[in-house]
């Protein structure tokens, strides 16, 4: 009994140091999330204010860390007139780590595989925390018209790229816009 009592009476005394030593971790975490949120919100603002044509993105309803983006194919490319939806999911340590970006609409492209994964250097090793959603979307948009056929994810698309007319037909054939 006495030991229990002592423990009970001790807990308030010992609690503060424990709490103070423990607190930094959770607070740091929340602060981090907050700063990520802040960054994402300001990116959203910047994106909406920028008025870039052909790209747009917006967070999903309840989650600021998951965005849906759209890219329309640039003029004078085989992707002209098409529109692609993408999903962007931001890690908790964004922007120090790159977001995961995937095509939701199937895209017949040398650097996009059948699952919508994108092979783009800035989304992998060339990522910089100075990039943002806008630059990502612009990069992907320009990637559509200028694929890197040297390291293709879709070899069929890569081999067909040389024949732009055929490629255009293929794009139109495989294009399934998401409503």
């Amino acid at each position, binding site marked *: 009994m006495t030991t229990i009592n002592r423990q009970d009476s001790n807990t308030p005394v010992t609690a503060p140091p424990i709490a103070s030593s423990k607190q930094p971790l959770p607070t740091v975490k929340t602060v981090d999330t907050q700063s990520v949120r802040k960054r994402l919100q300001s990116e959203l603002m910047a994106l909406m204010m920028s008025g870039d044509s052909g790209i747009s993105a917006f967070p999903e309803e309840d989650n600021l860390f998951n965005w849906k983006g759209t890219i329309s194919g640039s003029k004078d490319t085989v992707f002209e007139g098409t529109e692609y939806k993408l999903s962007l999911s931001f890690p908790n340590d964004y922007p120090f780590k790159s977001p995961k970006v995937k095509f939701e609409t199937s895209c017949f492209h040398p650097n996009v595989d059948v699952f919508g994964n994108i092979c783009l250097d800035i989304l992998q090793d060339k990522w910089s925390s100075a*990039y943002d959603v806008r630059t990502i979307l612009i990069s992907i948009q320009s990637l559509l018209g200028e694929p890197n056929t040297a390291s293709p994810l879709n070899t069929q698309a890569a081999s067909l790229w040389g024949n732009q007319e055929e490629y255009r037909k293929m794009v139109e054939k495989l294009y399934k816009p998401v409503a």
Partner: protein
Amino acid sequence: MVSDSIANASIPIAAKDFPRKKRANRSAKLKQCKLDARREQWLSQDAWRLVCSEFKCEVVRFVGYGSNYTSSVYMGPSEAKKSNKHLDVSGHAVMLTDHFESRNGTKFFYIQNSHGEDWRSGGYGKIVKNKGCKGEPDASVVVDAHNERGQSIENLEIMPREDMKVESVHPYSDLDSPSNSPTSHTSIALGSTVSGTNFSGSSGDSSSGSSWSGSVTGEDEEGDDECLDDWEAVADALAATNDKKKQHTNPSLEQHINAIDSPPELAHRPASQIVTSYPKPECVEKVQMVPPTGRAWKPDDTFRPQSLPNLSKQLSFPMNSGRHYGCGGVTWSSNNAPSLPSSCPICCEDLDFTDSTFLPCLCGFRLCLFCHKRILEEDGRCPGCRKQYNGGPIVGEATLDGGGLRLARSCSMIMRS
């Protein structure tokens, strides 16, 4: 600039404890937002005019403040005359941003000064409306004794009126240095502010009332172009408002004020020698200082303060550029000139002074110390050029211009890739 040196001096302190500094920063920003919001609300009600007519203090001049800004005292013309120091000629205009009443019934004006955010509470201060009732024209006295950044406005000390006289007797030479010339700052730096200075009430010219109202409508964020472009216009405008007020002034009150305020030997000085003036109709009338011309100061006037710019058009004054540094998108009132990128591109938090002098990479990419530390803990590459951060960071070496150029370059590089 003086404020720069002050900020420099505060670096070591600031560098010591980031968290507190950051917090102060945030609270200052919050305060700024509040002030802005309140100000907008206030302006939308056309309350500016209301204040003008009610408090007779449309433009407040700081008189004789020290170069270190440890005290900022507004003095009415009467006090200036009493102390016989011609202090009033050093007129410095500040802008009234709001007015409010504290719990104990003291009425204040919120003012914004033109010295940037380093000046006291993020560039804002308070002025006590001395008696705070209608028809009492002698609004006076300021305010605090600190140049502490982020200091809460509520904590400012209010000097009693007796102290005011003492505080305000600063050598006039304090105000002579160009960097410190308040008049040249104000009306330009505040953009469209109704901040006329240096008016010797030319009561005759009532035709210029339009310029007054014009300056009021230009209050918004229209920018530098709306700035009053002429000292004379300011003087005329104020004189015109004074005329209106004069009609409502109670004669006995006027007599009373005059008895207090105007020593007889001053009352009969020739107009050309009267250097102290103030948009106060009583003075204008009794002292009869109606300059022959409508302009505030003649260029050859002996008593013309050196700190005043020449009476040419002032639109091209370099302080204009100060506003452009103040980063687009932010409201006009945050003229935080020293920080080029106003916020860290990584975390979007505001860059404070230490951050803005922090140049970790030769490419010129700036970021806050927190993000820099974070990156060093991970891959350690500069976000701007992807090169490894190496060696000690270069702190405070970049000049404003150099930093700006290099920043621009790094930005454009990001765009391209």
